[in-house]
């Protein structure tokens, strides 16, 4: 970040205390610094516009911002279903315009990554408000905040208070995991989720796209994988579908990280790729069942190379998730060829060594195709040799803080998911538990804590599909969204409840069927 950047402002923000948001508009997640005044400005649906500041490094050719301007205009004014707003009262001061200025090279046509600068500052005063950000990613975050500042007074007039906001996220990796293997999710459902993510400043879609139950990803290199492995030919994501998701996400500053989980969780892969999975044995006889991917065949690795070569081209993010969780050893143990291989390699009876052998080769494949790797914690726990920079996702609930300590002590970055398994539903206000988690609550040095990249709310799909995904995700995931964006001091549950109930109603008015937090109502 150069001297023209917002570095100084960010420093000031770090020093200034959080303002009393309870008395101001309901912002979610709460920005780093909000200074609001009682001075109310009116906003006219007909006159108000969002435009590029002449000095901005981005202009009308920046499709990402053009789309965002249009979108946010709709979010702000479509709240009011009536044809015309009330006549402007002359005594009121009007906010005529929001000027958006990108300070550094906009990155408008690039894909976001983990180091993307999402900081912004917002100055709202008559007659022109200013949104300043180093990159378009900050502008997107700022537009969302701006849209949350506008409310309708009791006459229906769109109103905004003069205020000054400086904001940037606490953690750079703030993700949602969706599972399209246990249940197929129609594209519409995924796009709707991306919209809701943007309302909550999430910036990573972790797409657990295939698993045991089905293989909906249509591979150009290996079309039989989805032909035979999907639930049906209409339960498939074509290359166009995948591209649609990636671009829709990009326009919202959201990264799409695909997960092709192996060697376990791969039953569906074997339907379309013969000899990929390990045949299990009953004594000396082959049973009809299959286990994890067969780690001893060269054909396995040539298949994986080709598949990941394709995947790395289809998914532009720098990272790819390789899975590596819950590998069942029983089938490997039963297979005589594998037992021979174990002997030959000197692995003894330790099948974790065989697992490591496999995972290391897959990690090599990933780096051959120039992707960074994310893996589930078993890969670390089972002592696989990891390249520095490999990210470990901590998901097992028991002793997860210790796990974080161990992983970071070994020098690897961490994504936290363990306390945030949203598929584990229960009766009552469980959002509070998610909100109370602090991702840095483990024993470690400051250097270790810096290795926590952020976290992901996981919505596994065993009991979830398009009928219940949205109410199950929102607003519970919103609690996690604030935990990952806002300052660690933002902990007051009562204030959070007050803001989150308003934010939830806002999501509903924007077409997201977020469920209620508790008894009450929305004004529409």
């Amino acid at each position, binding site marked *: 970040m150069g001297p023209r950047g917002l570095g100084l402002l960010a420093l000031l923000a770090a020093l200034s205390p959080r303002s009393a948001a309870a008395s101001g508009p309901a912002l979610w997640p709460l920005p780093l610094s909000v200074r609001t005044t009682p001075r109310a400005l009116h906003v006219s649906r007909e006159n108000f516009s969002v435009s590029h500041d002449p000095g901005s490094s981005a202009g009308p050719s920046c499709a990402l911002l053009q789309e965002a301007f249009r979108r946010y205009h709709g979010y702000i004014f479509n709240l009011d279903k009536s044809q015309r707003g009330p006549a402007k009262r002359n005594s009121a001061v009007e906010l005529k315009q929001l000027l958006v200025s990108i300070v550094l090279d906009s990155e408008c046509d690039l894909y976001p990554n983990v180091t993307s600068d999402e900081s912004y500052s917002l100055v709202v005063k008559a007659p022109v408000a200013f949104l300043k950000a180093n990159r378009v990613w900050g502008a997107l975050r700022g537009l969302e905040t701006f849209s949350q500042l506008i409310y309708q007074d009791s006459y229906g007039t769109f109103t905004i208070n003069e205020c000054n906001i400086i904001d940037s996220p606490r953690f750079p990796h703030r993700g949602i995991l969706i599972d399209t293997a246990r249940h197929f999710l129609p594209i519409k459902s995924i796009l709707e989720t991306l919209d809701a993510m943007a309302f909550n400043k999430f910036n990573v879609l972790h797409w657990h796209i295939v698993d045991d139950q089905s293989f909906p990803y249509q591979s150009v290199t290996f079309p039989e994988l989805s032909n035979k492995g999907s639930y049906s030919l209409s339960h498939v994501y074509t290359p166009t579908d995948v591209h649609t998701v990636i671009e829709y996400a990009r326009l919202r500053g959201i990264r799409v990280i695909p997960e092709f989980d192996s060697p376990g969780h791969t039953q569906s892969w074997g339907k379309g790729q013969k000899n990929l999975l390990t045949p299990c044995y009953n004594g000396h006889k082959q049973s009809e069942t299959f286990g994890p991917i067969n780690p001893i065949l060269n054909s396995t690795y040539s298949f994986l190379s080709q598949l990941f070569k394709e995947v790395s081209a289809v998914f532009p993010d720098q990272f790819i998730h390789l899975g590596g969780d819950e590998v069942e050893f029983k089938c490997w143990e039963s297979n005589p060829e594998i037992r021979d291989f174990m002997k030959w390699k000197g692995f003894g009876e330790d099948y974790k060594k065989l697992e490591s052998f496999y995972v290391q080769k897959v990690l090599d494949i990933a780096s051959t195709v120039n992707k960074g790797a994310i893996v589930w914690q078993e890969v670390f726990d089972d002592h696989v040799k990891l390249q520095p920079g490999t990210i470990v996702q901590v998901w097992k609930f028991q002793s997860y803080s210790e796990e974080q300590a161990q992983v970071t002590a070994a020098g690897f970055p961490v994504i936290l998911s363990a306390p945030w398994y949203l598929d584990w539903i*229960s*009766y009552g206000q469980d959002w509070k538990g998610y909100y109370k988690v602090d991702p840095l609550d483990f024993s470690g040095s400051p250097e270790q804590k810096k290795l926590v990249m952020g976290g992901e709310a996981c919505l596994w799909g*065993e009991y979830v*599909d398009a009928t*219940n995904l*949205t109410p199950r995700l929102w607003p519970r995931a919103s609690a996690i969204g604030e935990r990952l964006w806002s300052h660690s001091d933002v902990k007051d549950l009562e204030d959070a409840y007050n803001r989150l109930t308003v934010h939830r109603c806002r999501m509903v008015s924007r077409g997201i*069927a*977020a469920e209620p937090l508790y*008894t009450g*109502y929305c004004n529409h």
Partner: protein
Amino acid sequence: MAASGLWLPLLLAAALAGRAAALWPWPQYIQTSEAHYAIFPHDFQFRYHSSSAAQPGCSVLDEAFQRYRDLLFSSRAWYPPEPTRKLHALEKNSLVVLVVTPGCNQLPSLESLENYTLTINDDHCFLLSETVWGALRGLETFSQLVWRSPEGMFLINKTEIEDFPRFSHRGLLLDTSRHYLPLTTIMDTLDAMAYNKFNVFHWHLVDDSSFPYDSYTFPELTRKGSYNPATHIYTAQDVKMVIEYARLRGIRVLAEFDTPGHTLSWGPGVPGLLTPCYSGSHPSGTFGPVNPILNSTYEFMSSFFLEVSSVFPDFYLHLGGDEVDFTCWLLNIVSAYDKGYVVWQEVFDNKVKVRPDTIIQVWREEMPVHYVKEMELITKAGFRALLSAPWYLNHITYGPDWSEIYMVEPLEFKGSPQQKALVIGGEACMWGEYVDSTNLAPRLWPRAGAVAERLWSNKLVTNLDSAFKRLTQFRCELLRRGVQAQPLNVGYCEQEFEQT
């Protein structure tokens, strides 16, 4: 449609492909065979038998015929049949409906007979029922028997069904006070209830949180007690519409006005109604239940329940009832209006003197005793009982809880056959603290279906594997019919849910 010579081979091919009709709830007696018949939408009609007491003009069945047409065949365009085409032996072009007892313009009641028989064989395609309500049940079953071959032909197997419900009160409770539920949500729920053969909509209209019922005697109740009197209310017109919508589906509307507790929202509109709480010697500003010591309370309740009794035509009213003395004279008021009443179990637990024909609803799982014991005590004292305790669907947990719901046996308590006969049924409850139209449907369906089958089907229908298979398929059918029913477990439906 192609020349009739083509579809016969398709028909045979379908026979080999295997049938897949998911019946839910499972009928009392059913016999089917592999033999089956084709149905051509453009030809097919629901018809009244000439001897039927119900004839064209019977709104309940006229409407139902139209509804089931749409459910079965949607609005697909079909090639018109050749006008001179003879009916093939393996084709059914109508379901003939014979209702024995007239009563088309009446309301369903607790005593209504819902039995029916369906006969689909070479000679007949015939639905016989005692009443129009039984005919509705039979139509629903018929719609579940029709299936489609991979080529898209509508087929129905040779079938003989004799069916009737095990329990006559099979209800669903919705709470419109904790969260307002728009009319469309209520009507969607009534549709799904009909698919599951539920027959009572227990409408918990008002409570502490809000008073959305638009009272014409006391309009201030609504104006001051609703969340928003312009948008979050049920007008007299709305209530009428719900009652008629339900009636056309053979569903009774059991309204609940819970007193004397759960009445905070009544206070703002009727000053002096609620008991002012005291902090030492001064009023604290907060209120408790309805004030039982004032004459004005008595007058208010009298007038209010006069209105309620006339707005809600079902014989029964649910009075809630969490306290002893008050409930006693309230019950007197209500019986003076020629209504019967249903109350929550506290009224019985607290030994309130109630009329012997009171119905007691059991909702507490462990207190003061386990609900199974409670059922025993209530029926031993001679009262009719409704079971809800194990069926609180608002209590969600991770995983497939439908099976616990399904395996409840309402009559598993110790008692004589006479006692057991006093259990008139049960209700699945969806309290509204955490539920509104954003999440109601997936939380209700298909889990409530488990309650529906338990209350309709034979006591011996308890095989979980079979239930899982049928319920999974039935859930996909619910999706096809536009019900936002969530999945039971991993898997898929041919047509997945897409938000419209």
